[in-house]
């Protein structure tokens, strides 16, 4: 190796190092920007009331105080709310999976009159503002006696959310069409092809939808607050808002609120860590998030 190429490659390495250093510096800034709030809430949930009143605010709690957790858990009936939310979420996830895979299969593997036109309509409904349909929906549910129950939250998920249909369709499109032909030759009808041949291959897409649906339903505060009126039917999100109003009205325990925020977010964090791979894949596949 001549001296010239040596020094050239050396300066190239230095340049590369500088670049990496800059990247890490910016990544660290990003880390503070995105993660510090989460760290703060966890630390705050361990603070005593006295810790909160100190000026300037302290980062670390003076002692490892766990008392906020049981107090928050008991201040509103979170046990019931967790159970309620779990039931609603589970039923919704099942509904979204069944309906999105059926409709997604239809839009991707079958040819029928109006398919492309209807699919365009489906895509455009994703852009329709929530507020423009909510009032008649509410009146419709009221008419049939569903307001105050979980039905308005659960039943629609059995009738195909366009976002998940789109995701399923995109995934079905990646599977070779020879599969359908082979199934047909073997005597499968469309339902058989769907159920026995293609659906088992879509597990990653189904996992993606399950995760997105879980997170969306768990955090879907607006609909819950509109449709539910009895405390016994409330969800975790409403419970959290409930606690916030209680505290706003004079019970000054920020630690309580932080503890409640931590334990109500845990299911989401858990699902996120388990399913992150699928979420990222889903986003890459559809070019959109599942919300």
């Amino acid at each position, binding site marked *: 190796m001549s001296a010239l190429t040596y020094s050239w490659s050396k300066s190239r390495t230095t340049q590369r190092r500088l670049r*990496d250093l800059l990247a890490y510096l910016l*990544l660290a800034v*990003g*880390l503070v*920007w*995105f*993660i510090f*709030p*989460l760290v*703060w*809430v966890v630390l*705050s949930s361990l603070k005593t009331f006295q810790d909160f009143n100190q000026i300037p*605010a302290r980062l670390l709690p003076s002692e490892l105080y766990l008392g906020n957790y049981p107090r928050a858990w008991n201040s509103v009936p979170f046990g019931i709310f967790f159970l309620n939310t779990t039931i609603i979420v589970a039923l919704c996830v099942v509904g979204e999976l069944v*309906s999105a895979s059926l*409709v997604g299969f*239809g839009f991707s593997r*079958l*040819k*029928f009159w109006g398919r492309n036109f*209807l699919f365009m*309509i*489906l895509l455009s409904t994703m*852009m*329709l*503002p*929530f*507020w*423009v*349909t909510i*009032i*008649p*929906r*509410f*009146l*419709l549910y009221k008419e049939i006696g569903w307001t105050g129950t979980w039905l308005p939250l659960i039943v629609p998920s*059995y*009738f*195909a959310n366009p976002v998940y249909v789109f995701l399923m369709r995109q995934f079905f499109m990646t599977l070779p069409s020879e599969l359908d032909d082979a199934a047909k030759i073997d005597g499968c009808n469309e339902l058989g092809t*769907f159920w026995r041949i293609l659906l088992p291959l879509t597990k990653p897409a189904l996992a993606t939808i399950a995760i997105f649906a879980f*997170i969306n339903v768990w*955090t*879907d*505060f607006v609909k819950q607050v509109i449709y539910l009126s009895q405390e016994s039917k409330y969800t975790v999100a409403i419970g*959290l*808002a409930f606690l*916030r109003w209680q505290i706003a009205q004079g019970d000054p325990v*920020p630690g309580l*609120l*932080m503890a*409640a*925020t931590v334990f109500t977010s845990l299911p*989401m*964090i858990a699902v*996120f*860590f388990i399913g992150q791979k699928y979420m990222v894949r889903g*986003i*890459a596949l559809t*070019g*959109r*998030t599942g919300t």
Partner: protein
Amino acid sequence: MQTAMTIAPRLSRIRWAKLRPHLVGWAFISPWLVSFGFLMVYPFIASFVLSFTRYQLIGSPEFIGFQNIQRMLFEDPRVRDSLRVTFTYVLLTVPAGTAISILVAILLNQKVRGIPFFRTSFYMPSVIGGVGLALLWTTILAKNGPVNTSLAWIGIEGPNWLFDTTWALPSLALKALATAGGAMLIILAALQGVPQHLYEAVELDGGAEWAKFWHVTLPQISPAIFYNVIVTTIGVMQSFVDAFIMTDGGPGTATLFYGLYLYRVAFGFFRMGYASALAWMIFLIILGLTILNFRIARYWVYYEGEE
């Protein structure tokens, strides 16, 4: 059908064979057709009709002509307030949010170690979402919170963010910007889809890093950016939870989002007719903005196969 079969069995069998795939197709998409009819088309039309009525859940809707529309456009100061708040919020969050998500996505696309860790961390706040995240930011922005403590280090006395008429809306915008994880991942996916040979072409031409970014990366990811602008604009125009939880629209009307006002009219005062008129107006505004976005897109979004 039965009689047709007995009269001309062969013809109808052919017809059935022709018809069958279409019927099967429609059967598969029927769950969506049901929700499209009952939860989209019907409410869409019904809210339009309700806009011309007075209806407070008692009795039946009473037709009142253009009274709601007149009230909405000329008499109700809350409508003007909430539109101003909402548009300001869009201006504070959409351009900055787009810029941040592009920058962070580029950062996450660097070939350095530990990227999966950073990607996870940056996306996590977006997952928590909803009420929990709103509460979290309520304490971050508290008078005695970490933001003001940090400001105190450099000698600035921070305001009481969420309770200050001037700062309440920017505070909510700040919160929105710290949770832009979804947009970031969409752009990251687009970045990873840019064909490598395009970069090699720039290298052969002796182009620098900047040229690569300007002539290859940006045009290639512009459809993803455009998509994000559309979706976040529509989403931000409908904001509700943050104002509902963090500020309750206040102080005064400083954070009275249109969505929050509509919610109050509909589900606080149960004025379904007037709320429907409000809903249709926000629909038309969002539609207008979306069309405008598509128009502007002609000048900056690059699509393969054009030109």
